[in-house]
């Protein structure tokens, strides 16, 4: 515990360098191919060894939380799409559910199942982007294109369903805007049937590759107790061996009816997190297949008034977004405008774990560790 505090809190001071060579301070970002956005980390180096790191964020700050207080409840959705822009479906799910909880609305089962299918597809898509960019950071560039090939299929389904590929927005407070198009189930199943072969392909290229193992095994180790103390969530937490997934801990939508496992890592290193995310993609595929099988008929919109005016009160609702716990703390004052919309972004909290993880590693590991945390700056800066 004290150790963690020290890791997180100690300010940088003078370091001893090998052979009294000068300490090199290098700015990685805000424009750098491996920081996954406008993120800046200041590295103190001795040659190639990292003595310390400081994070600087906020370059993409757009005041999303403030914007939420200035429109009605429904206006917030499209703004949230721009937060985690590789998983916008999940953003909307979290917000809609938080407001539904405040309203006390039950959404019909068909809408629940469709929401699960779409968010799980989004999880696969998000993890594919992560795998591709992470592998590219480590130098395996072919994986990137393979991952985007599969992601393309998911985006095609999204395009047909939502009418948009990236900033999807058809989740409504109380249900969904659209019912499925003809052949939606078939296309999803088609993807799911093909997908295991594709994951096997990625794992064939990476999992047993000696260079890949050398670059990820034992790099950026985050022990379970450190992970909890630092508050990381999602695959980073599970990679450290903590079996915690909000879909299981506080089941929302219809997750209680679906059968899936939570993969966890052993050592908490970059390789474990890689395995965890790969397994999560498989589990998501399982969920999608089950959900399509069980997909009930019926309405897609619950009983919600035209003007959304939740009773005064406050609610904190979290969902398991691809990157971790995405929480919405919505305060209502009984009007049609949210009084306060706090977003608890997973990447923001996970990113705090970067400095302790990179200390003592090499420059090349820094990009591997940034990649393994899986950050999206739109969500961190909001």
């Amino acid at each position: 515990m004290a150790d963690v505090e020290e890791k997180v809190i100690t300010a940088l001071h003078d370091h001893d360098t090998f052979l009294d060579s000068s300490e090199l301070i290098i700015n990685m970002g805000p424009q750098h191919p491996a920081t996954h956005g406008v993120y800046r980390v200041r590295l103190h180096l001795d040659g190639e060894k990292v003595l310390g790191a400081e994070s600087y964020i906020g370059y993409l700050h757009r005041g999303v939380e403030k914007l939420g207080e200035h429109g009605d409840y429904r206006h917030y959705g499209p703004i949230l799409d721009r937060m985690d822009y590789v998983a916008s479906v999940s953003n909307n799910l979290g917000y809609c559910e938080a407001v539904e909880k405040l309203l006390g609305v039950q959404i019909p089962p068909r809408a629940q199942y469709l929401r699960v299918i779409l968010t799980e597809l989004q999880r696969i898509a998000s993890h594919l982007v992560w795998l591709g960019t992470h592998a590219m950071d480590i130098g395996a560039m072919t994986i990137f294109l393979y991952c985007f090939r599969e992601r393309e299929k998911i985006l095609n389904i999204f395009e047909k369903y939502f009418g948009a590929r990236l900033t999807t927005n058809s989740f409504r407070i109380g249900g969904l805007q659209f019912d499925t198009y003809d052949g939606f189930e078939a296309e999803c199943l088609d993807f799911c049937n093909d997908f295991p072969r594709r994951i096997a392909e990625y794992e064939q290229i990476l999992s047993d590759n000696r260079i890949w193992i050398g670059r990820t095994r034992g790099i950026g180790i985050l022990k379970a107790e450190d992970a909890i103390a630092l508050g990381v969530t999602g695959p980073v937490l599970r990679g450290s061996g903590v079996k915690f997934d909000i879909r299981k801990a506080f089941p929302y939508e219809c997750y209680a009816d679906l059968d899936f496992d939570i993969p966890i890592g052993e050592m908490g290193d970059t390789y474990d997190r890689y395995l965890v995310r790969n397994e999560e993609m498989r589990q998501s595929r399982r969920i999608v297949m089950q959900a399509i099988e069980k997909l009930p008929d019926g309405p897609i919109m619950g009983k919600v008034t035209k003007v959304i005016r939740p009773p005064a009160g406050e609610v904190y609702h979290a969902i398991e977004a691809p990157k971790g716990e995405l929480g919405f703390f919505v305060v209502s004052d009984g009007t049609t405008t949210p009084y306060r919309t706090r977003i608890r972004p997973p990447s923001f909290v996970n990113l705090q774990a970067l400095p302790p993880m990179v200390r003592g590693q090499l420059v090349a590991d820094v990009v591997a560790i940034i990649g393994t945390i899986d950050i999206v700056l739109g969500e961190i800066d909001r």
Partner: protein
Amino acid sequence: MPDEIKKDQPESKPPAPDSAKPAATPPPAGHAPGHPSVSEKKLATKAAAAASTPWTSPLVEEIKKRFQGSVIESHTMVGQNVIILETPSLIEVCKFVRENEIMPCDYLVDVTAVDYPSREKRFDVVYVLHSFKMNERVRLKIYVADNETIPSVTAIWPTANWLEREVFDMFGIKFSGHPDLKRILLPEGWKGHPLRKDYHLQQMDDEWVKANLNIETGQ
């Protein structure tokens, strides 16, 4: 174009922009002991308040027993438990909440704040906690006045580091004992705290923008 924006600047507006919308008026000042959602004003509006019922649990009892007068209120709302605390006892209670046997909340999920400008203690500071042992969550809440310094919980949950920095950045609430309390999302030297209710949506620090970006306006 700059003239139009100038008109929107809050300097030329009355201090409380909410006064234009009577329904949005927050609970009356001096309401610290009660939960803001149960104000009569709210009940008078069309929307009913979400069911907020008093909540007791072994944890709350234990806190009440150990730290006399620390708990103002504890209730549950839409299935979520909230304990409202007195600020001075925050650190002791947090330490106890983290290490007790009944429901050890070893995991700090979120720290945030809500601004009610017309209240005497205008801010709610909210700590969302999770207990892996019980798989349960609880929210701690304290009322903070403007310019009041509250103790930092970074020593108990290191996660609070950035979360408290964000609260400081957005609301201007100062945390004592925080190792590195500076702005996190906004640049150093920016004036104003955007998530306060009296900070206008289009407001910005013109001086800073001129000095650092060499442009008249950031719009």
